[in-house]
Structure formats: C-alpha cells, structure tokens
C-alpha cells in the first residue's frame, strides 16, 4: 500500500495537474459497518437427510459425470446408498429450495443412479488403527449394518448377530423385492463385510445366545433388533388373521402363502401398503380397511399413490369388530367410523357410528395395525413404556456399555432414521470406549435464501416406471433407473444451496474491486471493502453473510 503524497512546497508539485499515484492509500474499508464473510451454509436437503448425505456436493459431481467420487462421498455418511436410493422417503426433496422455483430435485433417483452406476466399485480399505475392543451388534437391519460399518471402518472388531438365515433385517424380511431387489442389498452388505465385520446368522438373542453372555464377552453391545412384534386387534376371531409381517416375511423368503382370491388388509401404514401390493402380485384382489381417511394414513404418500395406481382398493372410515368363518371363507364384521376430536398424535380420533355395522366376505385377512419392539430379553435391565425404551433407563444402560437403537428404541420408523441411529450409536460407542464426552456439534445456518435471478426454469426429470400392466404379474422393480443423460441433466438442476461453486458473482458485481479471486476460491480485501452488501445479495446460494462490524 502506497503512502499519501505530501507536497511541502510549490516546487515539488508537477507543472500541471497530472496524477502521480493511484488511490490505494485510501483504505475505504474504514467506511464499512457491515462485513461480508464467506460462510458456507448447510443445504436444507442435507439438513433434512437423517443420514446427513452431502447432497449438494454429490449432485455437483454427478452433473460433471464424476460418479465414482459421488459414490465415495455417499459412503462417507452411508453404507447403503443403493438401498436408500430406492426405499428412502426422501425428506430431502420435501425441503429442496428448488420447489419454490419450479420443482424439487429428484434426489432419490439420483442416489439410486449413483449406486447403480458404481455397483462394481469397492471401498478402499484404508489403513485403520488396530483396536483391541470387540463390539457385538444384535440385529442386522439398517441400524445394525450402519453401526457395524462405521465401527469397523474405525478399526473395531465387530460381530453382528442375526436371527434370520441372512443379514438385512427388515430390509430383507419386510421390504418386498419390487421396491428393493435383493442383489442390491446383498452387494451393500458384502461391502460392509469387507471391512472385517463378522455376521453370525441363525442366532436369535434370548434363544440361541444369552444377552448376559454377550455383555461379558464384548466391550460394548448394540441392540438393534427392530420392531417385529405385531400389535393385536383385540377382536373376536383375531386368530383367523395372519399378521402382515408374517405374510411379508414368508413371501420375501420365497415360501408359498395361500391368501386366496380376495384378501382384506387391516391398517393404513407402510406394512399394510407392502402387504396390499404384494398380495396383488400373488394374483389376489386386496382391500385395505382403515379406520380413518386417506389423509390420516401413516404410510408414506408415495406408497399409497403406487398402491392406488396398481389397483389396490380402499375402505376408509371402517373398523373390524369380529372375524368369523363362513362357508370356507372369512366374514369380517365392520363398523362405520367418523372422525371426532384430535388425539395425542394430532390426528382426529375415529369414533364408531352406532348401528352402522356391515360385513365383508373375504378369503383371508392380514392385520397390519403396527409393530412394536420386543425387548423381553432385556427385561431385567430395562424400563419400557408401550414397548418404547425409557430415556432414563437407556442412559443407565449406556453407561454400562449397552446401547439400544433403530426401531427397537423408537418403534417402527424409516430406514433412514434407523441408519441415523446406527451411525450415532457407532460414535457413542467409540466415545464410551475411549472415555470421551459428546462434543458440541457446531450449528450451521441453513441456506434458505436463493437468488432465483441466476437460474433458468427446467422441469424435473421424471423417474421412469414399470408400466402397471407388467407390475401385477411379477416382483420386478417398479422404479427404473435414470439414464446417464437424464441423471446429468437432473443433477445440473441443483442450486448447490450454501455451497460455493465458484460462480464468480461476488467478484463480478463488486463495485470496489475488493473481492480477490485465487484458484477456485474468493476472499474479501477488507482494506477496501465498503460493506455495500452487493456480494451477499447477488450470491445465488447464500454462501456470503453480512455481519455487523465491531466498532
């Protein structure tokens, strides 16, 4: 920086008015009362993702055709991108900023695309610290698998105990293959095993192996046994009904289940939808009986839409009161309901209308009114309320090295929530073994302000679907993969909210030439920045914040 020129006499001055120096002695930064700072924000999609996938960066890589890097970025937060790309309810898309401009990004389809494109890739098994502690995980569903992956990656010896003959938990037993082809699940489990995770199948806790023994033999224990216990209807003739979960498990295991021509499914959750769509594929005509209306159904909206689309029929505002045998068939006695006052869940409580009884004749009945965890093997140690683990009891257990997570802790939830629980538990176990406290996670602001002026309207690429006519005859996957062109086009729609992608706008629009551009990054020259705020306003993706200058 130059010093100001000072003339001490007339003789020192030039003979005419010419400039002798530039204005760089004039530090206009002193005018500033608002300071622009580059501070990347968390994109709402990433914030909404239970697994915390770095969606903006991943989509940016996909748009450039860098699929392997995208896949490896997924695997930093999730060992199951192929599974999630298919079965996740994608809360990320619900929060996508682009929905306020035209349509949300098709994030789930892109996750699936990346997983498919990289199906043959493997993790690079890095040098890990060798650790002596052994960890037992009970249950190999999404929570158990995710926990195993993160612990094994950090060098711990992990053994996963599974009651069924193959690992996967609800992913294998509960989710039909038209939503999740088994080779995808098998491959992702195989990649977890490559990290040295040992799977002991056909080993049921409380039956084949004792919890106390595991506790003795292992340094920490993760109970992720899921929620497999079907709730009762508590009506006469209940014994004639098969549980929805038993039905799905049997069909998914390749067993023949005779449900006849007409099957009645009781319930409105995801299990009910899976049962109905599976029954349809077995050649039956399913009828879903639900005591509230479509709006209150707890199933994921997309699953309800697909069921309707495929021809599943619904009987809303109806509740079964009894099941009887009649002429080799089953007769379900129902009562018509109406919606009353909201209950604890905020949904309006269904109330029977007196004298509105009616009957439905059917070949079989599947009950799917919810599942709950069965933690009886832990009963000596654990206080539960309606099957849900009490927080205080859990804290005590954790101090002793027993962690509970996934559906076993919360009751039935989503794959992504179970995975979040699995990963958080992996870190909790590491802290437990190392005697560390939980660090305070930095709270990042969400990138909510997008300057739409810099984007061009472009419709969302629809996910290709198997025609309905081809669906009911087979268990072929209903959603198809995006093509390479479709994936790159769709990924390029991403706004990259909160993530600088060196678009140059801050540099372009600075009236004071006070933004310094150096190989792919920017900084503010605070000697000259006057704090006008133009850079923050024109940043398309809210990477720049204005903070008050300390005076």
């Amino acid at each position: 920086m130059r010093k100001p020129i000072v003339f001490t006499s007339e003789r020192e001055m030039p003979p005419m008015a010419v400039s002798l120096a530039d204005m760089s002695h004039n530090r206009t930064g002193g005018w500033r009362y608002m300071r622009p700072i580059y501070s990347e924000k968390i994109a709402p999609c990433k914030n909404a993702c239970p697994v915390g996938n770095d969606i903006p960066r991943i989509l940016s890589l996909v748009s450039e055709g860098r699929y392997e890097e995208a896949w490896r970025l997924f695997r930093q937060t999730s060992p199951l991108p192929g599974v999630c790309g298919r079965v996740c309810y994608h809360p990320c898309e619900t929060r996508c900023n682009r929905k306020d401009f035209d349509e949300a990004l098709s994030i789930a389809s892109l996750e699936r695309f990346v997983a498919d494109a990289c199906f043959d890739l493997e993790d690079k098994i890095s040098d890990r610290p060798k650790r002596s502690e052994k960890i037992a995980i009970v249950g190999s569903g999404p929570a158990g698998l995710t926990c195993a992956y993160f612990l094994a990656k950090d060098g711990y010896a992990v053994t996963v105990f599974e009651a069924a003959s193959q690992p996967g938990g609800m992913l294998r037993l509960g989710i039909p293959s038209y939503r999740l082809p088994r080779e995808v699940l098998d491959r992702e489990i195989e990649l977890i095993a490559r990290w040295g995770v040992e799977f002991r199948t056909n080993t049921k806790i409380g039956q084949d192996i004792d919890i106390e023994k595991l506790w003795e033999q292992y340094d920490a224990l993760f109970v992720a046994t899921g929620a497999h216990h079907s709730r009762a209807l508590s009506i006469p003739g209940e014994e004639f009904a098969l549980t929805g979960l038993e039905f799905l498990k049997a069909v998914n295991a390749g067993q023949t289940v005779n449900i006849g021509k007409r099957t009645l499914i009781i319930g409105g959750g995801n299990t009910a939808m899976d049962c109905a769509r599976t029954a349809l594929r077995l050649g039956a005509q399913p009828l879903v009986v639900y005591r509230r209306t479509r709006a209150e159904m707890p199933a994921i909206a997309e699953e309800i839409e697909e069921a309707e689309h495929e021809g599943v029929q619904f009987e809303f505002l109806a509740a079964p009161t009894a099941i009887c045998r009649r002429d080799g068939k089953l007769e379900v006695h129902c009562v018509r309901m109406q919606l009353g006052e909201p209950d604890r869940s905020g949904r309006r409580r269904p109330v029977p209308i007196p004298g509105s009884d009616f009957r439905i004749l059917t070949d079989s009945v599947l009950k799917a009114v919810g599942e709950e965890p069965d933690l009886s093997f832990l009963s000596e140690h654990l206080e539960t309320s309606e099957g849900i683990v009490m927080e205080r009891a859990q804290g005590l257990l954790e101090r002793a090295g027993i962690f509970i997570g996934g559906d076993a802790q919360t009751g039935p939830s989503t794959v992504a929530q179970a995975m979040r629980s699995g990963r958080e538990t992996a870190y909790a176990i590491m802290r437990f073994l190392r005697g560390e406290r939980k660090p305070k996670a930095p709270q990042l602001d969400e990138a909510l302000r997008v300057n739409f002026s810099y984007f061009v309207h472009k419709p969302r690429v629809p996910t290709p679907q198997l025609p309905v006519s081809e669906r009911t005859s087979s268990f072929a996957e209903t959603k198809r993969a995006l093509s390479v062109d479709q994936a790159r086009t769709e990924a390029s729609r991403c706004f990259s909210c909160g993530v600088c992608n060196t678009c140059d706008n801050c540099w372009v629009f600075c009236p004071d030439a006070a933004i310094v551009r150096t190989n792919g990054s920017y900084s503010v020259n605070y000697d000259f920045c006057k704090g006008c705020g133009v850079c923050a306003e024109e940043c398309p993706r809210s990477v720049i914040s204005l903070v008050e200058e300390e005076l």
Partner: protein
Amino acid sequence: MRNFTLPAEELMGSGHLGCQGCGGALAMRYVLKAAGDNTIVVLPACCWTIIAGPFPYSSLKVPLLHTAFETAAVAASGVRAALDIQGDTETTVLAWAGDGGTFDIGLQSLSGAAERNENIIYICYDNEAYMNTGIQRSGATPFLAWTTTTPEKTPKSEPKKDIMAIMVAHRIPYAATATISYPDDLIRKVQRAKSIYGTKFLHVLAPCPPGWRAPSELAIKLSRLAVHTRVFPLYEVENGERYTLNEPKEEPALPVSEYLKLQGRFSHLTENDVEAIQEIIEKRWQRLLRMVRESS
C-alpha cells in the same frame, strides 16, 4: 445457471471514492475491462470527477483527462484528432459523462461530435439526477421521482428525456443501452463499439443507492428490475435504423411497482401515479417493438 465470463484485468483500482453500492463505479470497472489498457478517458464534471480521486491521484490505470461540464464530446474529439495526427489509430478515446453532462449540459457538444461522426466512444452513465452535488433533478430524472429540487409535494412532472432517440436521429453507426446487472451484455457492447469507426454512444443505467433512496445491496437488483419491468430495455441501434432488442426476453413483464417500491424516491406515489408511469413504459415499449419489427 447463468454465468458471466469477464476479462480478468482490473483497470479500475480499489480505494476510489464511490459510495457504497455505486452503480457508476461498477459500470466503469466493466467498461475498462472491455476497452482495455490502451484507452484514454475524457471526464467532464460528474460523480466520477470525485470518484476517481483528488489531484495528484487517480484510481484508473489508464490516462484520464478532466474537462469542463459541457465539453466531454468535444474534448474527446480533440484527443482523437491529436492521436490521429501522431498516427495512433489504435488508442480508444472514451468520453465518460453522467446524465447531467449528457442529457442537459453537454448535449450541444455531443450533438456536434455525433454530427461530425467523430471516432470516439461516448458513454453516459445515467444515475438519473445530479447526484454528487446533492441529488438535483436532471433531464434524465424519471417522471414523478423525488429529488431535492423536485420535492415530494411537487415531484418531477416531466418524463425522462429519450436520449437514445436523440442520438439515433444523428444516424451514428452504433448506439446501445446497457446496465450493470448484465455485465456480459455491457462488455460485448463496448467491444462492439471499439470495432466500429465513428461515434458510438452507450446509455448505461447506473443505480445510485443514496440518490435513489435505496439500500446499497440492492444496486444490482434495481438494475435487473429496471430491465425486467421494461423501464430500461436493453437494445442496440445500428446506423440510426437497425434496432435489435436484447432484454427483457421474458413475457409478461413484471409490473413497474416491483421496481418502484424498493426506492425511497418513489415512496410518495399514489396508485394512480404508478398507473401513469406504467402507461409511459408501455408506450415506449410498444414504440421500441415497432422499431425492432420495422428494421427486421
């Protein structure tokens, strides 16, 4: 994503005296990027007389000649003639004047230079009033705008002078409008002007946050809205005949209220006032479309 690719070279240095969010400073930064370092700037009295810095300093990295208020075009003609005599036809001579020095005080000398088809680029950066002397109204001040000489009770009662029509009537080889929210368009137009012999005129809308009574961070947004509401369409006219419309492309246009409501200088407007302004805009827009149609 719309991306801009601008020449990297900075010929306007930091430390200049432009206000926060100065549209005129940003316009100069772009214009010099396009004109290149072999340029001489001729500057009459205007904001930039101050912005460039006091004697013996200049924030421009090219030669800069200060001259009297009414003389931008004629002084530039003189510089051009001196260069030509020395056999230098490469150096670009750029007259850089505000709206006061163009629409009002310098109009006579500008008309003279255009009539002689002097080989200069004349750029008017238009902030729609005499800003550095205290926001007095000029011939470029919009209809019903507040200035210190047209206070709220008696806002400016005349519409903005159509300087482009005046310049086009001189049948100069190139005249164009541009603004700071479309830097690539502005740079292309300066480069185009550089490649043409004769008088080239650029009318550049340069938002002035203090004078327009608007927050400084909205400088670019205001410029963009001026285009999107058709208050300031971007177009080019060759040889006084051939009209080309560049922006806005989007149909339908935003209502002018979107532009006016962000500026304190219009805060006194009634609904009827806004309607009257909208009518003027619509009339000028239809005339522009007619000229574009007739020349194609």
